[in-house]
């Protein structure tokens, strides 16, 4: 049988990472190839076009749209100050003037003789892109951005919320099945990334926000708590823009699930290290999963990314079960039968046999496992 690719989450103590840092619009790259950068360094900047303010000058002056160009004091492209007159018309045989003033500072963008509208544009909004992770500028995309490369310890999460942050890893629980409670969190977690165990609840998240922690890494969350935190029910997993004062990365999923041992142990071993982390999740089109990147020292010659291989499952591959029953359990593949099998739901599927930690062998649909990639 063909070995179909099985998706998995990467957990590694030393991985070569490349990250593109690209501007939303073309602009200026302020670093050069080979530069060493730190996560908070700015690598590129640009100006987004300012907000547009339309004014119906024809209506305001009480004239036909076709007459608007003649009544303009300012022309397209002219700079304007707030309160400055942009159009003026004489009334009652020239005895009175009727003026239109600008409500904003900016420029006149467009004058329309068909609609009588004048469009003003506010000053550009500067945008700066940071390196996000410590590393070396390995590529420059002219006017667009850069590629940063480094060697890191790395954990790919399954779902997250919140934007990019950096902070120091700090453990709050002692074991992967530990439950993070408010009692564990105090002022010492300020600016830190808190590592919890199996589940985090809303009061604990609120406490973490209160003590100004930067982020939380935890195995699971109850959907109801997430809904309350965000104020709405997430419909599709496109996240990362939430502004709740904290970034949260789930390593396993929704509900109480133990964190995978190797994830927990890796984070424990890197306690006190600086990490870059984001909660950006996009499961459709150009999949993006949240990441925890812990830069480690490296020599430039080490920066060679291994070619990705479409690895299928093999006997002995470590896997995580990602659907009931046994959701979240880690086991190893013990057999890959070729024939389709009928499972309890009467669905006819390709299955695998897996050995649990207690030695028990179970049958699981191949679609319901995730390879643990190291």
């Amino acid at each position, binding site marked *: 049988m063909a070995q*179909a*690719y099985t998706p998995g989450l990467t957990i590694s103590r030393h991985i070569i990472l490349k990250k593109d840092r*690209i501007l939303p619009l073309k602009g200026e790259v302020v670093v050069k190839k080979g530069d060493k950068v730190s996560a908070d360094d700015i690598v590129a900047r640009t100006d987004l*076009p300012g907000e547009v303010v*339309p004014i119906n000058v024809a209506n305001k002056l009480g004239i036909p749209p076709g007459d608007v160009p003649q009544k303009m004091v300012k022309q397209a492209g002219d700079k304007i100050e707030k309160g400055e007159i942009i159009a003026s018309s004489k009334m009652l045989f020239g005895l009175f003037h009727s003026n239109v003033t600008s409500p904003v500072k900016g420029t006149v963008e467009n004058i329309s003789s068909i609609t009588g509208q004048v469009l003003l544009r506010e000053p550009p909004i500067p945008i700066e892109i940071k390196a996000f992770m410590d590393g070396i500028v390995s590529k420059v995309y002219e006017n667009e951005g850069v590629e940063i490369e480094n060697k890191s310890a790395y954990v790919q999460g399954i779902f997250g919320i919140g934007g990019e942050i950096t902070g120091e890893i700090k453990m709050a629980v002692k074991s992967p099945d530990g439950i993070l409670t408010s009692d564990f969190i105090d002022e010492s977690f300020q600016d830190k990334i808190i590592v919890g165990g199996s589940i985090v609840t809303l009061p604990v998240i609120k406490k973490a926000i209160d003590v100004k922690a930067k982020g939380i890494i935890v195995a699971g969350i109850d959907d109801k708590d997430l809904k309350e935190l965000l104020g709405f029910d997430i*419909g599709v997993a496109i996240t990362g823009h939430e502004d709740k004062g904290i970034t949260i990365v789930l390593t396993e999923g*929704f509900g109480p699930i133990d964190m995978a041992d190797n994830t927990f142990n890796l984070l424990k071993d890197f306690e006190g290290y600086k990490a870059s982390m984001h909660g950006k999740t996009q499961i459709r089109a150009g*999949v993006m999963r949240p990441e925890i990147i812990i830069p480690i020292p490296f020599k430039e010659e080490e920066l060679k990314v291994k070619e990705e291989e479409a690895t299928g499952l093999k006997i002995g591959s470590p896997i995580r079960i990602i659907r009931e029953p046994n959701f979240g359990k880690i086991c190893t593949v013990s057999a890959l039968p070729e024939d389709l099998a009928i499972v309890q739901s009467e669905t006819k599927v390709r299955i695998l046999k897996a050995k649990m930690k207690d030695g028990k062998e179970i049958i699981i649909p191949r679609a319901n496992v995730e390879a643990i990639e190291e």
Partner: protein
Amino acid sequence: MATELRSILATDCGSTTTKAILIEKIDGVYRLIVRGEAPTTVEAPFDDVTKGVLNAVEEVEDLVHLKGDKNRKILRNGKIVVPQKDNLGVDAYVSTSSAGGGLQMMVAGVVKSMTGESAERAALGAGAIVMDVLASNDKRLPHQRIERIRHLRPDMILLSGGIDGGTTKHVAELAEIISAADPKPRLGSGYKLPIIFAGNVEARDFVKENLSHKTDLIITDNIRPVLERENLGPARDKIHDLFMEHVMAQAPGYKKLMTWTIADTGMKKMEQVPIMPTPGAVGNIMKTIAKLENIEVVGVDIGGATTDIFSVFTDEQIFNRTVSANLGLSYSISNVLASTGIDNIMRWVPFEIPEYQLRNMIKNKMIRPTTIPFLMKELILEQAIAKEALRLAFEQHKEFAVTLKGTQKESEIADAFAQTVSGQTIVDMGSLDILVGSGGVLSHAPRRNQAAMMLIDGFLPEGITKLAVDSIFMMPQLGVLSTISEKAATEVFNKDCLIHLGTCVAPKGKYKEGKIALHAKIELPDRVYEEDIKFGEMVLLKLGVGQNAKAKLKPLSGLDLGAGRNTEVNTKLSGGVVGIIIDTRGREIHYDESLNKETMRIHLPSENSERIKALKKWMEALEVYPKNKLD
């Protein structure tokens, strides 16, 4: 060179799964040989859709070998070989795709309910998801419209408005707003956003002046040149072309895939076959069913990310298609919950389950969309959610499939005072001939009876309606195949794709406790079924594929089977793999909070234990799930 196609490989790259089918000509007839599938690989680390295609094709090869043809090969050195030479390769490789998130568009028209809707229809017809409709009368201020465009970042904008020779002022205003928004596409910072102008010809120069320097402006024929007529074809074709060029090509691996899809049609050189958006391909097949049989059809393709509904109604065979973005059973399963609410899902579940468990299960499916239910209870829950996804998508479709707005053949006094001129839906469940289901949850339901029940509960057919399902979810592939060989597509469709489930008999009207709803006399091949059926029942009568039964059906207690209240219908009922389903649960108007409007629904007891009892009774009657799993 081949003079006719001997073998065809067709793939559909869905948002979750890539499906591949191999069709071969055997004794002069095209037949499906095998079907394989693999996860779609738009995900990192591959970011390349062709990997999933090759995995699915490899599975096809393996399955052919398992069937005994050990020497048959399609791939050589990781490439699909076209044309076929001896036992290697195929004469054509075609593909459809809905991976990559689909085409997300904004449309703009002068009057929301007229050119705005025509523009929406053109965009939907081309396989797009319409994110918003801008209109001069949409009650938003210019700066709000500008903000909306900048916020949504669509892949493309269709600007229409004004009949040819009419006013240009409002079209100009919309062009100014789009220009001011200075929209940027989602993908690629160096691209200009494609804008199609399909409005008043007299506004073209003004639109050019405003938009040509900032955007990739394309001008095409007006979608509504006169009030009484739509001309959607040119704009639809242009959207489709631009989709292939600008959007799909940006998705990982598509450029490569586009070079693979070729056919040896016996001409002097191999012909490229464009990749078709999946909804467009399924639409082709639905139109074919309606045309061949001259019948009214509703079809559905429920996917992981979207649910597409297709319908062909009226004597003129008016075709409509809607894409319900974010109503699907994997990536957007959580949006079904967010849209309909937990209570609407729970009403289909025949057992107690704590709300938090259901919510977490749904979210876990959202983040790991390719998993499948192992436990029977999880299957039941997913099928309950599917019923709601179908229902919501169909409600959207009914609102969209209307008679042309803005025109009225006859005016009455009341119309003169009406604020809006609105069309009526042309979807008539009473006159519908066949309801066809496709998509993973329907095609792969372990029992066909489950597909039948999902279709009935999701769509609430009225009167007498045939039910069918895509056997293994291959309508998209057949839709694109029909563009190079209608014969091959039709033969496989009739012989291997369409599975007739049977016929649903459902009198329309209000539930009346304890009363007789229907007197049925049905002459089955082995017996005559003659019963008085009370309200609130579901009855299954076995009648096989290709078999017909003569039926005398007399609705009672004010019910209607299509001929009028309490009026007897003498007809023939077709069988199928499920049989004849009699549904006397009533069809009554109910205020639906999730949709904020009145909709039709069946009568369900309000008390929880009674509701569960009723669900179990119906599920047992229809043999939907194993009896012991419902206890």
